């Protein structure tokens, strides 16, 4: 019975490994964020490795690999983001702000900064309501 369970685990892992191989090869290399997509696909391979190790009876190796695999994926993705992706694609750093003008509760950042600046039209309009003080002369 245990033999059948081991065989099932190994066959599942072989299936997952072939899926990840096909996935890596079928990605177009000119598409956007292809490195992150490949790191993601190799995550399937990591889990397949862990399943195969459990099927082979190597539980300690499976546990170690289960802990180490996310660190590898994160380290590679972080290095790619910091040195290659961010420097080659400068448009990733600037964030485009999409504001709906019809929404009365959301305003664009430029509009708010213009309102808060000293020479804004809003402040000039507020001068109509400025407070005037009366000087009272006690001698009169």
């Amino acid at each position, binding site marked *: 019975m245990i033999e059948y369970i081991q065989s099932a685990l*190994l*066959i599942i*892992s072989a299936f997952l490994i072939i899926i990840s*191989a096909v996935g890596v090869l079928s990605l177009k290399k000119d598409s956007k964020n292809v*490195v992150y997509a*490949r790191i993601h696909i190799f995550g399937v391979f990591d889990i397949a490795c862990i399943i195969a190790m459990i099927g082979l009876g190597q539980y300690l190796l499976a546990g170690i690999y289960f802990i180490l695999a996310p660190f*590898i994926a994160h*380290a590679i993705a972080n*290095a790619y983001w910091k*040195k290659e992706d961010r420097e080659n694609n400068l448009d990733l750093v600037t964030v485009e702000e999409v504001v709906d003008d019809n929404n009365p509760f959301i305003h664009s950042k430029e509009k708010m900064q213009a309102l808060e600046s000293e020479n804004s039209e809003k402040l000039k309009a507020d001068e109509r309501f400025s407070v005037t003080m009366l000087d009272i002369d006690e001698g009169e």
Partner: protein
Amino acid sequence: MDILFISKYLVVIALIILMLAALRASAYKSTSMGLLGSSVIVNAFALALLIIGGLYNLEFYRDISLALIFFGFVGTVAFAVVLGGDDE
């Protein structure tokens, strides 16, 4: 023929296919892709060694596999840290 024997060979064949795919992927223009491909090849080789060592009664195959997984991790993370550079 034993079904466990066949399934072990199936995994080895799948691992060989994945190693070729990772080799192809590591030829991508980015350095990180080469790092990822080499890391995957090392891990796939460690798993293949686990299976083949059990089939052919190789000596120390578990230790070599553990060393490959552990030092593969250390090398990959070290290379990634050097590639990423310092924080700004």
